[in-house]
């Protein structure tokens, strides 16, 4: 472990924690523009977090300790995830500790806890949300894993930094399997981040909500942590996408100072990605909950086909 490695590691986590709400704000702003609404401020997310941190938090009478621990656990998982995914540099001391499979496991861990917390109060909405979240999860999780596997078949490594190094710094090649994986990844990340075709982040309509139903009973500091963790998750997913499909501009192992230079590149890429997300959300309509499995099964199939395509030329 080198000092520059430690520096880029800490910088990465700090950047993720600070920039994640901004990304959410940017997506909301773009969406408002595209929908001809007057856009909210970019800083709105920060203000909301500040407001929530200052408000009283109301906990249901018979909530168990699990309910109160869950926001911290989810936040911790997402912070750790943002430390594992290479965003600025590939020289990360945490990288050998967790590979792509561990990252998927980490997301699953957070999902299990937020679902359990939603079931803890025992309201109809909470359990409904938990069921739907797990339904989405059990299809999205293997699909994400297959997307990551498509990349690791090319690079012969499941280490995230290893994948990025090979893809970014190796010879430029277009991999057909990555095209399938890219489409699959887009579908999965829409579902996992509760975006429009699957869920609507700006609705509380009882029968359609998924993510909002899960966190219905949270308020104050707990809600702030969950909202922050939600933006962190979106940030993390965007960074996975960038790392797999547009890895250029990231600092290499032995390039001091390059980490700082990588930051504007990352912000630029995220801005474009966020705008695209807003575009997808604007042009598509929310689908019925029973169409969601089909949607995710498509993603899963595409990812598997991607892996098969990888084997085709050699066959």
């Amino acid at each position: 472990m080198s000092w520059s490695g430690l520096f880029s590691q800490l910088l990465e986590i700090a950047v993720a924690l600070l920039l994640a709400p901004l990304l959410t704000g940017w997506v909301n702003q773009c969406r408002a523009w595209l929908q001809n609404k007057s856009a909210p401020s970019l800083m709105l997310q920060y203000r909301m977090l500040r407001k929530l941190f200052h408000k009283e938090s109301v906990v249901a009478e018979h909530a168990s300790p699990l309910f109160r621990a869950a926001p911290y656990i989810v936040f911790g998982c997402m912070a750790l995830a943002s430390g594992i995914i290479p965003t600025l540099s590939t020289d990360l001391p945490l990288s050998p500790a967790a590979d792509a499979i561990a990252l998927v496991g980490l997301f699953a861990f957070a999902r299990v806890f937020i679902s359990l917390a939603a079931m803890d109060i025992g309201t109809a909405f909470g359990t409904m949300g938990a069921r739907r979240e797990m339904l989405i999860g059990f299809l999205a999780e293997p699909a994400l894993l297959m997307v990551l596997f498509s990349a690791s078949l090319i690079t012969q490594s499941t280490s995230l930094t290893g994948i990025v190094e090979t893809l970014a710094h190796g010879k430029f090649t277009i991999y057909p399997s990555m095209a399938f994986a890219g489409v699959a990844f887009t579908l999965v990340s829409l579902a996992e981040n509760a975006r429009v075709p699957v869920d609507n982040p700006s609705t509380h309509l009882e029968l359609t909500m998924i993510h909002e139903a899960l966190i219905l009973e949270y308020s104050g500091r707990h809600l702030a942590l969950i909202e922050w963790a939600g933006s962190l998750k979106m940030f993390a997913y965007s960074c996975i996408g960038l790392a797999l499909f547009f890895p250029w501009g990231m600092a290499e192992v032995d390039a001091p100072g390059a980490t700082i230079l990588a930051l504007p590149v990352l912000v630029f890429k995220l801005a474009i990605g966020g705008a695209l997300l807003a575009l997808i959300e604007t042009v598509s309509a929310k689908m019925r909950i029973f169409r969601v499995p089909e949607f995710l099964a498509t993603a899963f199939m595409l990812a598997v086909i991607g892996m098969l395509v990888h084997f085709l030329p050699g066959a």
Partner: protein
Amino acid sequence: MSTDLIHLDWILLLIAAWLGIGAFGILALRRFRFVAHVLFPLGGLVCLGVFFVALQAIFAAPETAVLPLGLPGLPFHLRLDALAAFFIAVISGASAGVSIFAAGYFRKGEGTPPGLLCLQYHIFLASMVLVVLADDAYAFMVMWETMALSSFFLVTSNHRIAAIRSAGYLYLLVAHVGAIGILLCFGVLQANTGDYTFANMRGQHLSPFWASAAFLLALFGFGAKAGIVPLHIWLPEAHPAAPSPVSALMSGVMLKTAIYGLLRVSFDLLQVQLWWWGVVLLALGLVTALFGVVFSAVQTDMKRLLAYSSIENIGLLCVGMGLGVLFRAYHMDALAALALTACLYHVASHAFFKSLLFLGTGSVLHATGERNLGRLGGLMRYMPWVAWVTLVGVLASSGLPPFGGFISEWLLLQSFLFTPGLPDPFLNMLIPIVAAVVALVAALAGFAMVKFFGVIFLGQPREDKLAQAHDAAWWERAGMLWLVAGCVVLGLFPVHIIEYIGRVTQILIGQNLADTVRTHGWFLLAPMSVARASYAPLVFLVVGAASFYLAVIMVRLLYRGQSRRAPPWDCGYPAGNARMQDTAEGFGQPIRRMFEPFFRMEIKHPSPFDEKPSYRISLDDHFWHWIYLPIARATEAVSKQVGRLQQGRIAVYLLYSFVTLIAMLVLVRL
């Protein structure tokens, strides 16, 4: 006593101690306190002894012994090698927790007298260890049958209930059909030499045809015990019927003896491995795993849910083993070692987490008297101990980091990713599909486990009487804590565990993962090289915990508000009650809908004009209707035909004798 036999002697001594404890149980047949608080803990202590001796024995050279038991001229041969020692360690390690739990579990006046139960229980333990030790077919079969019979009596300990009797009958039936397969397998393996010792079998070089016959017979025989689809039907019946410590032993431990048998036959006794065996194992394993997990997600009985989850795990074990066979057949021994390591790792972690989960249901059953998920809920408030402990089992079972289940899954997925390189392009194409199904199964297991934990322990109690539920007593807690420790150690110290497993793969395929793993330091698990893949559970846990506390500290710094308790908000709906939560059926509904072809479903919807509307749904297993019921009907039809011979009149029977005699005479004349 020679020094090089020391481990085997110790284990035999400890087995004798088990049998002695069982005999004491008979002497104190109805002295409940003595049996529960003295004999069972002593048995647990002996388990611990066996556990530590077996751990030592993994690193020792193979030891053999001949017991002068059995028939004259046909003594029992025993052999303790690394494979046997590993399985003995798993068996005794998990049983130690179960025995300690059992000290607080069995209650007065339920079914079999406690002393008899104690005898059956310890014979069961002893026979499982001896099955693994056996080094000839005769000893193996005797111990195998002892294991089946003792567990049958344990399953039917509440024999006054008809459903339990029929579950026990089904179990015994399948166990014996399976035993025939194993017996025939040994018959093929000895290759007409008449010598049934395993040492002789190892020396035989069978033709591919006979080797395949032996493998398929073993697969059938051991598959019936392990619960490979379609021989799985006894598991969901027998596990709920048995008392919880017994279900824990059967599901967590006994199923592993079948895996042991399959490994012993296909990697040790058979000298050749054909590639298509691996494909068969892979296919059966995948079907079993997917079938098990889908069924476990829709169950409404907590022990049935766990039984189906065991079927799923057996499927995953078969997948690992199948991959191992496949690599072995193509002489890619390093990869075969990786796949087998995944399989053996999962053997250990499943033994611990599944025993833990069954014990958790035992505590719930005791506290509430309910097995039906629809009548549970909110128990975390009344039984926090059991709830937190079970949560560890649930997380391990869902394959989440940093517990044991994740590591085996990780290793299994790694062995898929290293696959490209099989000489057959068709097989290469198959591998991603298999990996995809494994990933799907793992994610579905998470769904089933969230349902299991959420419906039992979270939410509001669905019945009033649940408010009287009490937490587990000290013995039960101690037993479960031992198993929790197992899950945690398996999750956090993979490099150390692989040192042990490496010895096993060394004797099975002559390759060892431990040497590679060791070079990267004790906290970093990297089966090939760090550049390819690595995982450091301890670092992962420490950084995860650090970010958790970061969040806590951050809230301390940022937070200005107060906290207060209030009725749940529930979108402002004031009249919510416990009946409005998702039931077990409700939670499983998406799975039921998505995997509809898996089930034989009968739904009765109420008509709109019904004054007392009712909704009934029954889910059934296709295999019952495809395989078992036809066989049962055919048996009945044949016996009915045979039954025509029985007229119940002496004259008719005399006529039979007369006709037979005439026929014989004619035959002899010819």
